[in-house]
């Protein structure tokens, strides 16, 4: 029963990763990292419920809860940043921000 959950988790993680690299809107990019975190949550809870050895433990669920908290902290920072960026430029296109580069 473990493997389907791992595959769903891997799928979510990989889709998030692909989206992170290809999308250009800063909010969408941020949501992609959230999707990566959702994939991790699925993996953690699945490992907690169907352990490879021994009895099920709660470590995975606890880990998942804390990950949700960390992701929320990052979301708060990320959305505050998005508001700041929009005030400066009026666009959220990642390509608009290229002040810093090699000469």
């Amino acid at each position, binding site marked *: 029963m473990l493997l389907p959950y791992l595959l769903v988790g891997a799928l979510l993680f990989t889709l998030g990763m692909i989206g992170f690299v290809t999308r250009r809107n800063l909010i969408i990019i941020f949501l992609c990292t959230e999707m990566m975190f959702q994939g991790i949550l699925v993996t953690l809870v699945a490992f907690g419920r169907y352990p490879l050895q021994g009895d099920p*433990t709660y470590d995975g669920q606890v*880990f998942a809860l804390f990950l949700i908290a960390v992701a929320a902290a990052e979301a708060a920072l990320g959305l505050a940043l998005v508001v700041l960026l929009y005030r400066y430029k009026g666009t959220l296109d990642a390509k608009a921000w290229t*002040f810093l580069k090699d000469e």
Partner: protein
Amino acid sequence: MSEVISVSALWPEIILLIAGCAVLLLGQARSEAWRRLMPWLTLAALAAAICIVVLKRHFGEFAFEEGNGLSYGSLAVFVRIAALGLGIPLTLVNWSQSREHERGEFLSMMLMSLAGLLLVGPADNLLMLFLALELVSIPTYIMVILSRTNVRSLEAGTKYFYLGAFSAAIMAYGFSFLYGLSGTASLSGTIEAVQAALLEPGTLEYGLAMIGILLSLGGLFFKIAAVPLHFYIADVYQGAASPVAGFLGFVPKLAGMIAIFKIVLLTGYWDGGHEGTFWLLWIVAVASMTIGNVLALRQANIKRMLAYSGIAHAGYMLVGVIAGPLAGKAVDSGGVGIMGDGTAAVLYYIMIYGIANLGAFAVLGLLRVRGGACETRRDVAGLIRREPGLALLLALALFTLMGLPPTPGFWGKLSLFGSALAAAQLWDDPRLIVLVVIAVLNSALAAAYYLRVIAAALVYENKYPAEAAPRNAEHIGAQLCGFLLLIFAFYPTSLMVQGQDGTQELTEGIYSVSAEPDADGSDIPEKVVAGGNSGRMIPADMDQVVSPLSDNNVTDQ
């Protein structure tokens, strides 16, 4: 690991967090006199935390307290002293950072980040390790954004934040596999499951273990700015104010390196040599050194140059990780000197790199060129005439980063590369010798771009040389960095011994898991390589080999 840790073990961390909250709130006070107190409050909190650590150590109360996923061993002691000790120059250099009414927020983020670093040391649980690393990272994103008023710091902070979240996700995914393999999140519980899984290639467990290690280390390479996730660093250093860039060169790097120690310890690589881990670290080390130096060569902007050279320094540090804490066992089966302990060399080097990097950035942060920030080689030209003290300090910091013989950077590189040579002898592995040759060539290459800046500051002329801002605290912080560099140039052992004490925990960890030593205790237990089929064996007659390294051991001087 279900027992509860006593609050008294956590006082330094608690003080930093309380002070962080206090500075955050009081920094918003209406009266200017109150707001001016905030840097002093930060300094007082750091001093109080140092006093507690030193007193506890002095009165032998530093029992190995553990519980709640924390385990205070030797590594935690080193991290506490290193982080709190360097916290003082970091505070001084960042004294008037950020806009005046945002100073409280900035300093509070700095305290939180340092508290996270203190928790990385004792973390004995994948969850604690992850949370501690995030507590180090998330405040640094805010520090970069707050550090300057212009749009560049915003762009730098955005890039840093997005890539930081990305790398945190990669690391957490790796941790989830390591947890799944053993069914427990505690590192000491995971170690056996991971090592057993790595012994059986082809099974599901082996695959999970390899993915877990690969992703965990991959995420951590972001923290130390090693190659696959290095590309953010130049933009971030350039966009952030110079003193903040100095902070980024030390705190996340130390946190990431300690976490890398903990993950590499899981693989049992230092004990028997796991091929997969070896190649991963080897390739990343070589690529970091080479790419970092080549990119740095092209830079006229000193901040970008220092950022790229930071990638190269991460590569040098990984040489010590590859050598491992037991590298010198073949040379000297008694007390293993600094030459024989790659991880102690890493701890030493990271301190020296942090101080020198901070010193260089502190000087850049103090200088003003026609009202703007001092960033390029042209800006520092002729500095020796206008500000001789700062020019000499910049030269000392850059010579240290370069690794010129009397400076502590030289001792650091000597011990890093020396430990790798000792490991090459121990394992009879020519790939390590190739690694050291590449590292030495890279150090020589690096001299080119450091010397250009030093020559600009000391030799060249400039009609309008940079001026130093009249800020006492920043001047004192920069001088403190120079002073520390001079101390460690002439007494390198004082810091090296600290590093060696710090890594005791790693060797103990190996012995508790590995096969028990032979009856006479002098022989190295023969261990066949885990995974892979190259069959790296430790020759039994290794203790007969006399090494040239044993004669010029640095700690004996």
